[in-house]
């Protein structure tokens, strides 16, 4: 950010404040959208939670999560399992609020969850998606003859990247003795 500012001072100083404010305006409208989207998904999540379905889901996923994230707290596991399952379904909008809640939950005992937090970020940012719906829609509307033939390469490339990244993170853990 410093470097960008320094360059801009010499090139186009009048652009600085206007860029910042324009961007901030965009974020305000983004946040209003997010407010609506999260309200819907958090409402649905709460139903899942109270009906006991969430517990079943996290019981189902907990062996994998325990291995990957090295945590034992049931509430943390629950939010992480929401996060992962909505990511797999391609519901990024549902994944984000549950991810935020998982981090908030893990903040409480920072010493034990250090690694889990890093893992959550890595798993979320490599982003395995079973159905990249937005992109398929985009291709179809641009007149593609087989809009969905990108599904397989997309899934395979993101799976490979995720596996490599998870291994790298475990390597980092070993080196740093977390």
């Amino acid at each position: 950010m410093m470097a960008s500012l320094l360059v801009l001072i010499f090139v186009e100083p009048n652009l600085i404040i206007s860029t910042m404010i324009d961007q901030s305006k965009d974020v305000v409208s983004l946040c209003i959208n997010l407010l609506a989207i999260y309200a819907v998904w958090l409402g649905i999540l709460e139903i899942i939670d109270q009906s006991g379905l969430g517990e079943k889901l996290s019981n189902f996923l907990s062996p994998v999560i325990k291995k990957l994230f090295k945590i034992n707290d049931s509430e943390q596991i629950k939010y992480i399992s929401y996060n992962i399952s909505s990511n797999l379904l391609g519901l990024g909008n549902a994944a984000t609020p549950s991810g935020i809640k998982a981090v908030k939950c893990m903040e409480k005992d920072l010493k034990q969850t250090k690694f889990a937090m890093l893992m959550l970020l890595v798993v979320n940012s490599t982003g395995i998606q079973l159905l990249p719906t937005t992109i398929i829609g985009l291709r179809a509307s641009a007149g593609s003859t087989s809009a969905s033939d990108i599904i397989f390469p997309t899934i395979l490339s993101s799976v490979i990247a995720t596996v490599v990244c998870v291994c790298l993170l475990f390597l980092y853990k070993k080196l740093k003795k977390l």
Partner: protein
Amino acid sequence: MSVYIIPIILIVLILYGTYKKVNVYSAFCQGAKSSFDLVKGIFPYIVAIMISVALFRASGLGSLLVNFLTPIFNIFGIPSEVCELVLLKPFTGSGSLSILEDIISRYGADSYISRCACVIMGGSETVFYVSAVYFAGSKQKIAPAIIISLFGGILSAIVGCLLCKIM
């Protein structure tokens, strides 16, 4: 087909909740209420990160980085036309989506270039945005995870372009 999956899940969910004697209406409202706090919490962090990205692009440093990295990406089989997308994807979802639309309309939906671009778009996430939102206000140091994730994004782009070529 996929249009029906989510609504069906919702219907099943509401029926199941009622069967389990959960007050579905008040549970939904309770969850929806927490949306305000969540967005209020992440807002300042999104503003900060998006402003940094905007300044980076406005200053021309962004395109400088693209020019610098394009030949390196070429070595690994990523076509020059999609390099900007690979580099922009970690920063902004909407920005990279508009680049993708641009590529598709310029090269045609079924061309090799557009297919690469689509795979790159679907194969990774907006790392900086995700880290700003998830770790809003967190004291945890996440730099190593960001570096690994960025590497993962580039790796999935390389693999994706290769897969598009052979299939």
